């Protein structure tokens, strides 16, 4: 055994390993520090050259320091050896270096098993459909490598070729597919991720933050990452109605706006609704925050219309109890016409008027002039909006930096900015003029994907707007951005910007072909998310219910899985045990029938017995049928062993065919008593 394990594998083994690891490392290119895949490239090339040019393997004195250097570099890069990124990076580097001491069969087997594990690790980072497809290729290569490593010592009868190995690997994976599907459908699902992933796993998730400083949404506007997708059951509301409500910001401090503290216990604002509801389903990408984006304004009557595990805050923002760390799906029901908070309590009013004293004197002065002109609250709002519209305010994603008095600086000096500049300065202005106001952040609009008839809302659709409280009307949405750049609200961010502004490629209006392609791809992705990644406990139970026509408890799924696996195993073992040898030769098949007939009357052929010998013995035992048995034996023997009467292959076939027909007939006629 040991000597077998020390055998040198053939040249394909290392190629398979390098190719499949190459695929895996390419996938990790986007998730690990660049030097990790780069180090793999170096070590892989080195190992390739060792195999190609018969270079010596590096000695221990070289490998040992390399190993320590790898570990230390991971430690320096990630500041730790634990956590998702650091540990995967460590694994990656060690696997890359292990290539340099992978030479015998045993090494390859260890390496392939390690690589299986390593390859699956990519799923901790992303579960996109193309990544899963690429993983299949990597797994195929690794399986072929395993076959290649195991084959070469088994027998020299079959010369190693990569085709044979690839074929066998493909066959094995094909055979594994039904098992994979059964496990996928029936493996009991646990809500949420199966195991705890280290905290740093969520670092890359982006989304709205719980505070706003001019510049923070800017980061999102440049990202074309999907924030969520919304599927409407009825007609999709107009673009200027699509305000997806996120965190509501009350508290101003310098240029920073934050939410109300959770400690303040305020009653939920009252809601009167009018008209039709708009029903929709949202698939929210994980963003590591609690907010569930809802179309303005979510109905809470009855309260169970809210998504599971969600609560509503006093300012009508819907939050979940846990940060959203997996893709979730929930239903919403919104009223586009509503009246929010017909009465404003004292506490709320003070919160909605809160300003830090002694800042932005020019702005306060402007507000004071409006108040002194005895203007009503509505008139003050209009005055502000008129100011935004008539004065040369410009909507841009690359605004200049603001000074110490940011609102003054913006309103009277730079006049360039985007939604959060307009929303924050508008609310500031309102509060200075005594109008209760607050900032609402969220997303605005969305792109219709005709391929799937749903809206794609990207991070670049992040938006901030204002709500002001008016007597008799409650909280009213005012979007100062629309006064400056109406097209931002009417038809999306790309139209509101000039061409020189940076914008993600896919949000741009040109390249219609590319766009269409992208939308189709997104539809495929959406299906993948919904049906593969989103196949959770709920869906599993629903599917089983529809298949079995009765309610299934969570624990029953395990039993069903076991039952299916046991049935599969029995089936496979039955097939394997039954057909030890599959006989395809029609001549042999016919003869086997003959043997079966004889064995029914107790005459069995020994496996080593010659056909003629057996015929003689059988004829002796069954003297009644001796002539038939001997004729059949002789005929079979001559078909099997005699020279075909003619040399031309075509006629041969006919000849043999006739003999075969005769044999079949004779055997059919034979009735033993």
């Amino acid at each position, binding site marked *: 055994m040991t000597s077998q394990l020390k055998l040198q594998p053939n040249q394909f083994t290392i190629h398979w390993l390098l190719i499949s690891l190459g695929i895996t490392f390419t996938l990790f290119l986007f998730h690990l520090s660049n030097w990790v895949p780069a180090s793999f490239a170096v070590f892989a090339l080195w190992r390739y050259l060792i195999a190609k040019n018969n270079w010596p393997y590096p000695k221990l004195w070289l490998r040992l320091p390399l190993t320590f250097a790898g570990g230390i570099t991971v430690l320096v890069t990630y500041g730790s050896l634990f956590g998702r990124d650091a540990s995967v990076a460590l694994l990656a580097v060690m696997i890359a270096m292990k290539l340099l001491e992978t030479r015998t069969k045993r090494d390859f087997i260890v390496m392939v098993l390690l690589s299986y594990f390593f390859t699956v690790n990519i799923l901790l980072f992303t579960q996109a459909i193309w990544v899963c497809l690429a993983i299949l290729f990597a797994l195929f290569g690794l399986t072929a490598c395993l076959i290649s490593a195991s084959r070469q010592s088994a027998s020299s009868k079959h010369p190693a070729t990569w085709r044979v190995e690839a074929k066998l690997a493909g066959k094995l994976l094909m055979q594994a597919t039904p098992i994979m599907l059964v496990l996928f459908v029936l493996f009991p699902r646990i809500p949420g991720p199966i195991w705890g992933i280290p905290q740093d796993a969520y670092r890359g998730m982006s989304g709205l933050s719980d505070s706003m400083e001019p510049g923070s949404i800017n980061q999102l506007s440049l990202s074309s990452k999907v924030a969520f997708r919304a599927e409407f059951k009825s007609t999709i509301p107009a673009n200027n109605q699509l305000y997806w409500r996120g965190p509501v910001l009350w508290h101003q401090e310098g240029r920073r706006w934050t939410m109300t503290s959770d400690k303040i216990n305020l009653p939920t604002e009252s809601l009167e609704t009018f008209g039709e509801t708009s029903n929709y389903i949202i698939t929210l990408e994980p963003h590591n925050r609690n907010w569930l984006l809802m179309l303005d304004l979510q109905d809470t009557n009855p309260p169970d219309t809210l998504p599971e595990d969600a609560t509503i805050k006093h300012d009508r923002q819907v939050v979940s109890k846990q940060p959203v760390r997996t893709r979730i799906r929930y239903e919403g029901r919104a009223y586009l016409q509503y009246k929010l908070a017909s009465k404003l309590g004292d506490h709320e009013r003070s919160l909605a008027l809160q300003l830090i004293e002694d800042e932005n004197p020019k702005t306060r002065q402007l507000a004071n002039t409006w108040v002194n002109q005895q203007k009503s609250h509505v008139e003050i709002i209009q005055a502000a909006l008129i100011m935004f519209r008539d004065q040369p305010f410009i909507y841009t994603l690359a605004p200049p930096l603001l000074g110490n008095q940011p609102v003054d600086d913006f309103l009277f000096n730079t006049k360039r900015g985007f939604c959060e500049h307009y929303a924050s300065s508008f609310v500031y202005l309102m509060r200075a003029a005594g109008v209760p106001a607050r900032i609402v952040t969220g997303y605005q609009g969305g792109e219709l994907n005709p391929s799937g008839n749903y809206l794609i809302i990207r991070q670049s659709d992040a938006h901030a707007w204002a709500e002001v409280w008016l007597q008799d009307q409650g909280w009213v949405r005012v979007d100062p951005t629309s006064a400056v750049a109406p097209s931002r609200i009417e038809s999306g961010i790309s139209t509101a910007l000039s061409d020189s502004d940076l914008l993600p490629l896919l949000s741009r209006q040109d390249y219609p072909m590319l766009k269409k392609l992208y939308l189709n791809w997104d539809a495929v992705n959406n299906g993948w998310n919904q049906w593969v990644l989103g196949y959770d406990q709920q869906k599993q139970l629903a599917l089983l219910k529809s298949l079995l026509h009765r309610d299934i408890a969570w624990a029953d799924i395990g039993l069903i899985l076991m039952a299916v696996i046991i049935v599969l195993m029995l089936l496979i073992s039955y097939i394997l045990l039954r057909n030890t040898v599959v006989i395809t030769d029609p001549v042999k098949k016919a003869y086997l029938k003959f043997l079966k007939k004889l064995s029914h009357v107790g005459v069995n052929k020994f496996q080593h017995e010659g*056909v*003629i010998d057996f015929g003689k013995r059988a004829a002796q035992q069954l003297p009644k049928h001796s002539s038939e048995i001997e004729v059949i034996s002789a005929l079979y023997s001559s078909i099997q062993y005699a*020279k075909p009467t003619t040399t031309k292959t075509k006629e041969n076939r006919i000849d043999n065919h006739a003999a075969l027909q005769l044999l079949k007939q004779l055997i059919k006629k034979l009735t033993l008593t």
Partner: protein
Amino acid sequence: MKNITDEIIAKANEIILGKELQIKLALACLLAKGHLLIEDLPGMGKTTLAHTLAQVLGLQFQRVQFTSDLLPADVLGVSVYDRNTANFKFHPGPVFTNVLLADEINRATPKTQSALLEVMEEAQVTIDASTYALPQPFFVIATQNPSSQIGTFALPESQLDRFLMRITLNYPDTASERKLLQSNGGRDQLKKISAAIDHKQLQSLQTASQEIYVSDSLLDYLQGILQYSRQSSHFNAGLSPRAGLGLKQSAQAWAMLAGRDHVIPEDVQAILPSVAGHRLVSNSTFSSNSEHIAQLLKAVAV
């Protein structure tokens, strides 16, 4: 064809009583152009069998009794200086014949043994840089005595491999022995029988034997046997490719003796003990080779 071979066998049967199987095997061996080793105790009719075969086949016969002081030149011949011609003249040895009976081959020294075995392989004699071809056909029928091994040089496996078949004669059955005792022994009758065929006929029989059809199915079976002999733990070493070729040729000859134009597995089974018996060396000292060969035959499916 079958008539001729039947006649040969019948004639030989008259001399050697009750040994039809051995006669057929020996004949098959000669038709397959192989050399024959007969191993048995003294007085079992080894020499008679060899002599009979030569007589019936119309072949020239020479006999050499191997002893420990026999030299190669005694078998092959020697060059002697001729004063008249002032040249060396080659005096051919007994090997220049059609059938050479090498009696008790294991009594000779290895040097002489190997000289003979070389001739068996090459069918020619090379002495003093001159090469002398042996008459065709050329067979060696060697006998050896298995029991009294004192002062003998057992043939090593490599040389045993040169013999296509090894047969044993065994004691005759009672009826045959009675018949034998009633007569004066086979030797006397030997003079009476005439040749059944001549050289040409023999050669055409040999050619016909080579043309007996061997199907793929039969080769599968044959290779199954070779494979098994190599994998089995009962044998020190498996059958060599030469042994495989010998199996095929012997089976062809056997099929011809049975009057068939193709080989069937039964033919292989019939000749296998004789062809493989002396080539396979049993691992165990407790069970005999023939038992293992029977086992081999049982293990390989037809």
